[in-house]
């Protein structure tokens, strides 16, 4: 049986989720040259925001078709507020500090957010069950799509279209491009760059929140540590696509997702590699890919600027 199409679809879906989170890394980096290592936790708080809406706000037994849009809104609100708070109170005071200071702050913030959810969110010390879309799975030819992944299938392209429209067509989007290319000159054009930075954080958080909901639907559970590895993967995707380039983030995510899935599926077939095919090696292959990209194409696939420090 040929299972390649199935593996490609799995990779595409996983990669779209990486891409949604990668957008936030790449946008913030593009504007302030900060690698926001707390972005994985913003993704995590988004997922918990969605869970909160379903479990604590909506009445029991609400249909998922009604609940899902509200959960998405809840996720976006929580993630955007956390990101804007982080920008205002953790990063803005360090805007003129040496590059290492905000980077370490980001790592500290990442841990603080994890621990805050662990300590204060009800029953979050272990994984919490995430509500599922009923029905499915769906079969297209001999490819199976899990019900939870239907959301990703729709959300990823819609998100990219919204983002593309925003950046290319709106006034704020053009201000954002100008700020990314030359912040001081952007100010001379009358662009409020402080506001642009907030918008970049907020927009990245909103897409991460969509990714957080996708994660919950895909895996059926969420936990306070979920943003760590996924954040690293998304960061890898951003670097892979060319950090600073929003389309690169999505492309990098998809390439990473497919590479990881194919490696896990097929590497054990190679002579002498029998041991390396299990799911637990998936992360290793993802980061091997990161190292290869940094060695051979450090500017990423779509080749914008590269993280020169930190």
């Amino acid at each position, binding site marked *: 049986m040929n299972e390649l199409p199935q593996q490609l679809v799995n990779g595409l879906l996983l990669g779209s989720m990486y891409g949604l989170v990668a957008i936030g890394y790449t946008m913030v980096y593009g504007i302030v040259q900060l690698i926001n290592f707390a972005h994985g936790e913003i993704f995590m708080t988004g997922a918990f925001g969605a869970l909160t809406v379903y479990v604590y706000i909506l009445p029991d037994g609400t249909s998922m078709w009604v609940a899902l849009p509200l959960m998405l809104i809840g996720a976006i609100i929580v993630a955007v507020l956390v990101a804007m708070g982080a920008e205002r109170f953790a990063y803005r005071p360090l805007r003129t500090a040496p590059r290492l200071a905000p980077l370490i702050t980001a790592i500290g913030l990442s841990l603080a957010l994890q621990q805050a959810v662990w300590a204060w969110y009800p029953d979050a010390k272990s994984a919490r069950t995430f509500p599922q879309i009923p029905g499915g799975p769906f079969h297209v030819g001999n490819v199976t799509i899990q019900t939870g992944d239907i959301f990703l299938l729709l959300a990823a392209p819609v998100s990219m279209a919204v983002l593309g429209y925003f950046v290319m067509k709106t006034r704020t989007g053009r201000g954002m*491009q*100008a700020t990314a*290319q030359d912040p*001081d*000159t952007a*100010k*001379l054009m*009358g*662009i*409020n760059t402080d506001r642009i930075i907030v918008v970049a954080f907020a927009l990245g958080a909103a897409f991460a929140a969509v990714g957080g909901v996708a994660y919950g639907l895909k895996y059926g559970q969420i936990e306070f540590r979920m943003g760590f590895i996924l954040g690293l993967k998304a960061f890898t995707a951003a670097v892979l696509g060319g950090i600073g380039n929003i389309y690169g983030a999505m492309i990098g995510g998809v390439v990473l997702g497919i590479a990881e899935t194919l490696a896990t599926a097929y590497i054990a077939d190679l002579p002498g590699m029998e041991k390396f095919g299990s799911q637990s090696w998936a992360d290793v292959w993802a980061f091997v890919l990161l190292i290869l990209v940094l060695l051979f194409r450090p500017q990423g696939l779509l080749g914008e600027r590269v993280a020169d420090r930190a």
Partner: protein
Amino acid sequence: MTTLLEVEDLRVAYGKIEAVKGISFKVEAGQVVTLIGTNGAGKTTTLRTLSGLLKPIGGQIKFNGKSLKRVLAHQIVSMGLAHSPEGRHIFPRMTIEDNLRLGAFLRNDKPGIEKDIQRAYDLFPILGERRKQAAGTLSGGEQQMLAMGRALMSQPKLLMLDEPSMGLSPIMMQKIMATIAELKSQGTTILLVEQNAQAALSLADHGHVMEVGNIVLSGTGHDLLHDESVRKAYLGED
């Protein structure tokens, strides 16, 4: 004549190093005023302070009668002060037309913006021919034209040009200077910073010579052009 810009005892520092040490000058509406001097005299620092990119440690800046003390850089543009920065700083990955549109970022009058873009193309036809090209592909002189055109897009009351002739071929420099003269004849008020003293003083109504953070000499463009110490120091004569 109305005074558009009034700078009094302006002091600017980078950390502990004072780059501008208490300078005062005025720009009247319709005039071209130039600041000349060598590298490190504080000319660029002065312009960057006027447009709000740097904060002064002392002194007063009044533009159109209002103090700029608590006004942020992006708000200063909306008051009518445009700045074409040293080194041009066009947005390299955007098209020429998008660069011009960014110059009009704060404006909402679409027909007016289109008219002014056309005006920039009339002023610099080469920009019109390449309107869809990425600005980073332009030559230095063309980038300078774009930077000037972009600054004009905000419909400024005062246009500040920082070293527009820097790094240009003599022919291109003449072209830029001719354009400044044309803008002057149209009534644009200009504050011009230049190392090329000859060209700047020939155009200017008033000039100020800066040396290590101070204005050491002021006068009409004509007088400074014929001042012996200026000729010795800046025009390369013995």
